[in-house]
């Protein structure tokens, strides 16, 4: 039995209300951080372990957990694991997790979104009821990114969804079904749940958030191909945090000629804690903050150790430009800004994200958000971009 202490959902701003998509600087990890970070900010110090459930991992090698924890602002000692799975795996992780667990779910395809659930000792109860694994690989992705689509919705419905739910022999009609399109879900549920914006792991959090917001209690099921998982949601008090800007189409951009941006992995590794955690080195002698951290204090010259300290993620534009000329490997136009972080006096040069290029102005306020700044020799390079506050610029 888990208690849902906090739920958060996040949708990227790109695409349409019917289908949100990731921007060129987003992936499952940046979405996961966006959803998870809302929870961490709402309940600081509550998270003791993190589980990420997704089928859209940007990389299959190691390092994902470190990127996630840094983006969330959690210590690198936090237990963190990644589960390759869809909606059933997400519901299973949430309904069986221990208090202190932050379950994050993220989807890129076919629609993008993310959700996070912080399990605690208070809040609405979610108890595991049952699960059933089945194999009906109607859609297959291999490790090199190739996809195979069997494309038989009736087979999915009859021998996938229905067969899996039959095996679970539910004694009641569910109040929410995650993992399916709106039409397929509607025929299986009681009540009038909202259409879910995603069909992968994150659809579970969207379904739970919707159920809690309309004070519905009962069975919640999650389906993926021929696998299903079911849990029982009791009513209770859970904080539900929503983040979704108005949907917007991609700006008109032009991709410069192909060019690989080289990467220095020693430089990547040295910068990691500061760059991905948005942390400054703080001079032990005079307290001056340095971003990036530096051996010798920019103010007093002290060369004593400079422990990292988190920087505020709100900022104001000191100066900004729009690059219009074609640049190899990048989409133009794009905006670059030097942003002052909170009242620290610390500035950061960042790309601007989440809006129309060529609109960033001096004095604009906004937030620093984790983004995939570039893919360098195939390696995703994460860091912070400036997202102007919605409505702050035309």
């Amino acid at each position: 039995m888990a208690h849902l202490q906090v739920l958060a959902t996040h949708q990227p701003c790109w695409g349409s209300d019917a289908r949100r998509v990731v921007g060129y600087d987003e992936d499952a990890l940046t979405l996961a951080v966006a959803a998870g970070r809302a929870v961490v900010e709402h309940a600081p110090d509550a998270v003791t372990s993190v589980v990420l459930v997704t089928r859209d991992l940007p990389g299959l090698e190691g390092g994902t957990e470190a990127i996630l924890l840094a983006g969330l602002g959690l210590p690198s000692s936090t237990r963190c694991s990644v589960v390759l799975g869809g909606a059933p795996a997400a519901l299973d992780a949430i309904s069986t997790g221990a208090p202190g667990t932050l379950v994050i779910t993220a989807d890129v395809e076919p629609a993008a979104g993310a959700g996070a659930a912080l399990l605690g000792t208070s809040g609405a109860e979610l108890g595991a009821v049952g699960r059933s694994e089945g194999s009906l690989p109607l859609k297959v992705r291999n490790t090199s990114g190739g996809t195979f689509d069997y494309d038989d919705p009736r087979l999915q419905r009859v021998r996938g969804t229905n067969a899996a739910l039959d095996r679970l022999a539910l004694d009641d009609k569910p109040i929410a079904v995650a993992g399916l399109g709106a039409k397929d879900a509607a025929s299986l549920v009681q009540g009038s749940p909202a259409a879910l914006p995603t069909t992968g792991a994150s659809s579970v959090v969207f379904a739970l958030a919707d159920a809690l917001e309309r004070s519905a209690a009962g069975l919640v099921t999650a389906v993926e191909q021929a696998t299903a998982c079911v849990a029982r949601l009791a009513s209770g008090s859970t904080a539900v945090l929503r983040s979704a800007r108005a949907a917007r189409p991609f700006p008109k951009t032009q991709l410069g000629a192909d060019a690989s941006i080289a990467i220095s992995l020693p430089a990547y590794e040295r910068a990691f804690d500061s760059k991905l955690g948005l942390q400054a080195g703080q001079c032990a002698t005079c307290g001056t903050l340095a971003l990036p951290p530096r051996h010798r204090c920019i103010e007093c010259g002290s060369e004593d150790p400079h422990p990292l300290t988190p920087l505020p993620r709100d900022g104001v534009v000191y100066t900004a430009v729009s690059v219009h000329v074609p640049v190899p490997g990048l989409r133009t136009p794009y905006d670059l800004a030097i942003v002052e972080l909170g009242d620290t006096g610390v500035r950061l040069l960042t790309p601007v994200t989440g809006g129309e290029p060529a609109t960033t102005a001096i004095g604009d306020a906004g937030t620093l958000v984790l983004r995939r700044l570039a893919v360098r020799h195939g390696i995703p390079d994460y860091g912070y971009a400036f997202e102007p506050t919605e409505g702050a610029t035309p």
Partner: protein
Amino acid sequence: MRRVAIVGAGMTPFAEHFHLGIKDLLPMAVSEAVAHVDKGFDRKDIQAAWFGELVSTDGFAAGVMADSCGLLDIPVTRIENACATGNDTLRNAFYAVSSGHVDVALVVGGDKVRETSSRATFWEWMSMTRDQAWDYPLGLVAPANFALHAQRYLHESGATREHMAMVAVKNHKNAVPNPKAQLRFEISIEKVLAAPPVVTPFGLLDCTPQSDGAAALIIVAEHLAEKYTDKPIWVRGVGLGVDRVMHQHKQDMTTFPATVRAAKAAYAMAGVGPGDIDVAEVHDCFTAVEMISYEDLGFVDRFGAAKALEAGETSIGGRIPVNPSGGLKAKGHPPGATGIAQCVEIVEQLRGVASNQVDGARTGMAHNIGGPTAVSAVTILSTDVS
């Protein structure tokens, strides 16, 4: 400390020299400088050479320079200091002659920018000049470095894109009679404003072209000057200044502290002030950079550049003509050569033979800023020995 004189100066035209390599351009510039010495010059007199090049082309710089110019019996040293390379190369050679270790030195600058696709150049230069982890992946192309300053400068000073355009119009006009200039055509303010955007606030006509070229100076100790010429041009002051490299560490982006520091050093050595400068070649890789530099060099008050342009103070015939050669904007900008070529222009000005002659010019200045905006070199030349 000995006084140091320029006795010969020469340069190739600045252009897209697709048909000439760096090994062609360097000997061309050196030969012109040698031929320029009034009373004749024997290359065997050269005791040491300094070569400024930003990007090595066709081999390591000092070797390419020595080999292509036939200077195998003397030491040749390469100087690289971003876009301040040219004036810094002269500065290093000056110290050798001034200190008494070398009597006759050759100072050469050159770069072969158009050796790669014009677009690839953006990336190649970026990889050299940006923090690998923090800046490089962001697409901080060369014009963006200066544009970040220019946007803040416009915001605080009240100057406009029209004022920036005045710089372009002036420098293009100056380039027309200069046979060494790359862009020898006049433009209008309307044309500058209507040009396609590059990086705001810069349109295409606010930007220097990409150029190839080389330039050379022959400098000698005071006691040898009259052996070579009756019209020596004295190197009165040299200065170099640096600043924080990453933009986020530059507290006030409406000014280039590197220039302020370099100018302060050069003025102090020369024993002159901004009011003594009759003509100046100022780093105008982008129009607004010339404006900010007026202020950093002390030619006008802070945020006074717009007014000075409106009044034509920096045009030929004005109070302090700037970039009579056409500047980087219209003469061209092969970085290693740029500062040396500025000195070639000032030598001609002080000898009264420039294509846009500033009447009665006796003291002139050459100025570079680069790095981006983290290093500046300033040279003060004069007809007057002290």
